[in-house]
């Protein structure tokens, strides 16, 4: 059962991702992106990372996708059906990407140690476990992340607001 679900959503995520990079309409790309994020969230659930799955849905599917859509709306000009074209060097890009994938796949498949099957899962991965870890061992990175988010927020506001001349 888990296997079927896995393949459905893995394929969904990959298909949506290829939709993102091949669609010539940037609005479609943005929606494919949200779909891909949701597919990945299901993979997280299959890996017993419930909390991460929730965060994935909230942050990526919810927030990031919406922000992308807004940015698209703010900057769209010209014909929407040709808003997301490839450049002239796309062939080279495809070559390097496929090469990288081939190398990774070779390493993964020729290595028996990595064909690990899941061991029995008893508990863990809930928000409670994560928060315990975050507030003890990872306290400093946690605080740093909080600072980063604040700074990014302020930076984004300042950048998007723009600087007025003669001030």
């Amino acid at each position, binding site marked *: *059962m888990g*296997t*079927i679900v*896995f393949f459905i959503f*893995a394929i969904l995520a990959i298909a949506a*991702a290829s939709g*993102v*990079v091949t669609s010539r309409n940037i609005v479609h790309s*943005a929606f494919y992106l949200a779909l*891909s*994020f949701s597919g990945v969230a299901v*993979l997280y659930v299959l*890996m017993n*990372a419930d*909390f*991460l799955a929730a965060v*994935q849905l909230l*942050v990526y599917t919810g927030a*990031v996708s919406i*922000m*992308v859509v807004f*940015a698209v709306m*703010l900057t769209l*000009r010209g014909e929407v059906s040709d*808003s*997301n*074209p490839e*450049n002239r060097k*796309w062939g*080279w*890009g*495809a070559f390097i*990407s*496929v090469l990288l*994938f081939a190398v*990774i*796949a070779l390493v*993964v*498949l020729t290595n028996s140690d*990595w*064909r690990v*099957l*899941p*061991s*029995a899962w*008893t*508990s*863990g*991965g809930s928000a409670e*476990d*994560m928060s315990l*870890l975050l507030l003890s061992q990872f306290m400093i990175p946690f605080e740093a*992340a909080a600072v*980063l*988010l604040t700074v*990014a927020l302020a*930076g984004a506001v300042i*950048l*998007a607001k*723009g600087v007025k001349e003669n001030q």
Partner: protein
Amino acid sequence: MNLGNLSVGLSTYLLVGAMLFCLGLYGVFAKRNIIAILMSLELMLNAVNINFVAFNRFLWNQKIDIHYILTGNVAALFVIVVAAAEIAVGLALVITIYRNRQSTNVDEFNWLKW
């Protein structure tokens, strides 16, 4: 064949992650619209997160303290935080550039030229 008993292994997840990563990489290389490039970057970060969580899940060992074994998930969480910050600043930059240049086309951004 009973598909229910056929478990999915670590390498399958890694391959899914690699696939997503390479698709994102292709998007970064090949797209003209800078927002599309940012989207592709998000795909790549997602792929990395899949790997983190997969390693965490499959190398999970009951005997080790649970507070250490969730480290992979925590790393993924931090990646999400950084990604959120990145997309916010990135899009703000896009809007600023758009305001100055009236364009989102990367081909036209050649300030790095000699």
